[in-house]
């Protein structure tokens, strides 16, 4: 039964993630006053990439990208979507904090084998960025855990459905805003697109990926997008009782993210650290203090 639930959850997450990739390209082109590709374009891309040859740079190159994809898929199991949460009894937020680093780590392992200078720059940027958004993320998690007195996300969703959403209740409002501010950095979207930066470092960690490797990296990105937004919906927007309602909530957050992605230019890495360690960290810290005082 649990296996079946896991399978459904992975397929749903994949469908939603790939749909979001297509939607983002469509909305971006409408904002640019273009017609844009069909919404199925990422699916076409993935089919093409799986039918293309690919060159490998060694066994670690193959292993790293699989580790990265696996890390993203495993996180899906720990996030309740509607009533579905196969791993509800174990872990919770602490596990997510640990597994969240597997994605960048896998890409770094894989890129190290290829020995391309663009990849090295991209990887170092990715880790610096991870270092800067993990600090506010930890503070946000601490605030949520302190307020609800539990690390289980299923419990948190249950409490929220009985009372108010935590985004609407005062003690956690600042933490929610801080999470929204670091969400583009978490997903590598435009103000923090400096990891990929095709114009500067020719798409950074992806520079040596072609064919099947690029397809796996695209899938990883789709899963990662799903996880980042689903975490916000679960912790702050009260989760949902059924997957359809959950998807609607995710859609709202994602479209907000796309609008930010479409209008903002790219930060430099030093500006990104300065921003992330100033505003979101400050908000999250004040939020934590408020939570400690109120409770």
């Amino acid at each position, binding site marked *: 039964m649990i296996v079946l639930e896991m399978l459904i959850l992975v397929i749903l997450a994949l469908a939603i993630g790939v749909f979001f990739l297509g939607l983002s*390209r469509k909305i971006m*082109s409408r904002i*640019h*006053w*273009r*017609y*844009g*590709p*069909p919404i199925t*374009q990422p699916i*076409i*891309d993935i*089919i*093409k*990439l*799986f*039918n*293309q*040859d*690919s*060159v490998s740079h060694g066994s670690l190159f193959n292993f790293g990208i699989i580790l990265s994809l696996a890390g993203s898929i495993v996180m899906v199991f720990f996030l309740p979507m509607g009533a579905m949460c196969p791993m509800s009894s174990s872990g919770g937020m602490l596990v997510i904090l640990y597994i969240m680093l597997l994605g960048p780590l896998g890409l770094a392992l894989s890129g190290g084998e290829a020995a391309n200078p*663009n990849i090295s720059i991209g990887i170092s940027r990715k880790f610096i960025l991870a270092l800067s958004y993990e600090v506010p993320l930890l503070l946000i998690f601490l605030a949520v855990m302190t307020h609800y007195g539990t690390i289980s996300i299923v419990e948190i969703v249950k409490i929220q459905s009985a009372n108010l959403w935590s985004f609407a209740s005062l003690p956690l409002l600042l933490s929610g805003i801080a999470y929204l501010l670091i969400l583009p950095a978490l997903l590598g979207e435009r103000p923090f697109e400096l990891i990929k930066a*095709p*114009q500067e470092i*020719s*798409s950074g960690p*992806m*520079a*040596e*990926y*072609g*064919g099947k490797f*690029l397809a796996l990296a695209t899938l990883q990105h789709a899963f990662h997008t799903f996880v980042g937004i689903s975490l916000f919906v679960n912790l702050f927007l009260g989760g949902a009782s059924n997957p359809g309602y959950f998807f609607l909530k995710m859609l709202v957050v994602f479209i907000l993210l796309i609008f930010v992605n479409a209008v903002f230019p790219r930060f430099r890495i030093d500006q990104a650290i300065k921003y992330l360690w100033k505003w979101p960290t400050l908000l999250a810290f004040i939020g934590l203090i408020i939570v400690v005082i109120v409770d």
Partner: protein
Amino acid sequence: MDRNQLTKWIKSPGNMGHKYSLDVVYFCTGCGIIEIPPSITARWDAERFGVKPVATPRQANLFLITGYVSVKTLKAVIRTYEQMQEPKFAVGFGSCPINGGMYWDSYNTVNHLDKYIPIDGWIAGCMPRPEAIFIAVTHLWTLIDKEIADGYKRYRDKYKYYRANQEKVLGELEWPPLFPEDDKK
């Protein structure tokens, strides 16, 4: 455009994928590159055909050589072409790669690009309008459909010929052959 015909997708997903997802690496050799920005931005939106610029040759499957090819850039053109993953398509843009164009008697440009790498199609003109790129893309779709866009196969089969031509112009090449001799029967 038969992008939405499901039967064709089921019959040959690979071919349809290569048709409708062309990731292009633009080689900015000459004046031709000035026609690319209007074709990928709001005026003539190339992305509605699935044509998208990418940053590295590893991710690309269409190679657009825009403008004249000097001897020095020929080296980079060959290396870029060899780094792309099969199946790959190459298109020459403008009259200079076809036969030298207005630089036909220059001491430093290559007159016939298809002696050095296999070209699947040409866009003639000096300069071609951005619309010509879309006509070329639709022609390339037909070629891929009939499976005669086989430049990469020709490169593999006649590699000796291409390599000899490359060495005639560039002298001793710094990189090892892409398809070593002992692979052949």
